[in-house]
């Protein structure tokens, strides 16, 4: 076992890990941050998406030791400091961007990565950016709408589908 140190949501944390321990296993099993979900465990569904040094990654396909020392942001780090929902989270709630909620942590993290790179994306750009995040409930329309709304764009004209 080796000790790995990470800065998670702004807090210095460490855990004992094996070579094979995945980043998502450290987050969920060692640090108790179970907001990050494991859906497929084959790096396709995106439920485990977190930010590593500011970039979105699938934490089920990253070894913990390979990102030792990194700054990691998870869904638990997305709310405002006073505990209220962030703009993106509030938009998902407002526009019904979730049903069962399993994919939502990954969707929110991916949306945050998109809006950091591209603050006013088009609908097509939002859909393309979500290519690695699978939702089996919503049909994506309201997720896309929520992200467009979070970017400050008027979504009133987009019908609920």
């Amino acid at each position, binding site marked *: 076992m080796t000790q790995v140190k990470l800065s998670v949501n702004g807090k210095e944390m460490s855990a004992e890990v094996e070579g*094979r321990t995945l980043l998502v296993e450290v987050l969920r099993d060692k640090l108790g941050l179970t907001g990050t979900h494991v859906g497929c*465990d084959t790096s396709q569904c995106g439920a485990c998406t977190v930010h590593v040094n500011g970039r979105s990654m*699938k934490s089920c*396909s990253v070894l913990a*030791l390979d990102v030792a020392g990194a700054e990691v942001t998870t869904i638990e780090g997305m709310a405002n400091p006073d505990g209220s929902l962030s703009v993106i989270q509030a938009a998902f709630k407002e526009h019904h961007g979730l049903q069962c909620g399993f994919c939502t942590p990954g969707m929110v993290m991916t949306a945050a990565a*998109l809006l950091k790179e591209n603050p006013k994306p088009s609908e097509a750009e939002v859909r393309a*950016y979500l*290519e690695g995040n699978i939702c089996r409930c919503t049909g994506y329309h309201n997720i896309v709408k929520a992200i467009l709304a979070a970017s400050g764009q008027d979504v009133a004209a987009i019908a609920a589908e």
Partner: protein
Amino acid sequence: MYNFDFTRPSSIKDAVAAIGAGGQALSGGQTLIPTMKARLAMPETLVSLTGIQEMKGICTNDAGQICIGAATTHAEVAREVAKSYPALSDLAGHIGDPAVRNRGTIGGSLANNDPSACYPSAVLGSGAIVKTNAREIAADDFFQGMFTTALEEGEIITEVKFPVPQKANYQKFVQPASRFALVGVFVAKFADGVRVAVTGASGEGVFRWTEAEAALSKDFSAAALDGVAAPSADGMISDLHGTGAYRAHLVKVMTARAVAAA
């Protein structure tokens, strides 16, 4: 996933030593880690290349070639060469999905030489040079069949050098479920001729479609392909996503689209 020892050297020299001692190189891990989870690979030691600064980043050398460190991610390539080599940027920016592009690397993709990967077509189509810890290998010699390259045991890719063509374009017909290339064609027009590299189609991995190259070198237009027969369906991958004949047909269609868009 079976357990393994993990090491993350900070220099090419130390990495080569660790791999020479029996370690398996790990770059972004977007193929290797899922493969290990499926227990299709079970190395005893993994040698991560992600901590080697000298293998990261992009520059232009005196010969005008774009030099990309092997541990540079797809997302970085997409951002950094958007102006200097738009076709390469576009290809890199459409590999996998955003999270995969933030982790996967050009060196890892080339060393794996998946027959449906995008990067091999850009490297072969550009006539790029694959630099390793030991030597420089021309793209025409590097790719040697499905999942097979000229890399020797213990040899790692450190950099890829791309000559910049006058015009280029990559067209990918995606397999709708996996988003890998069912067929992808990279076309590059240089002063001394045109190169056409095809991925996704052949059971032998990426290849140059020389008949199209000859026609396009005389006349760089989609119409120039009218008189060229699609490549033979023999040896093309045939699976539930498409027959060999369908892939062969797509090669010609995607080549014409790439020429038109270049």
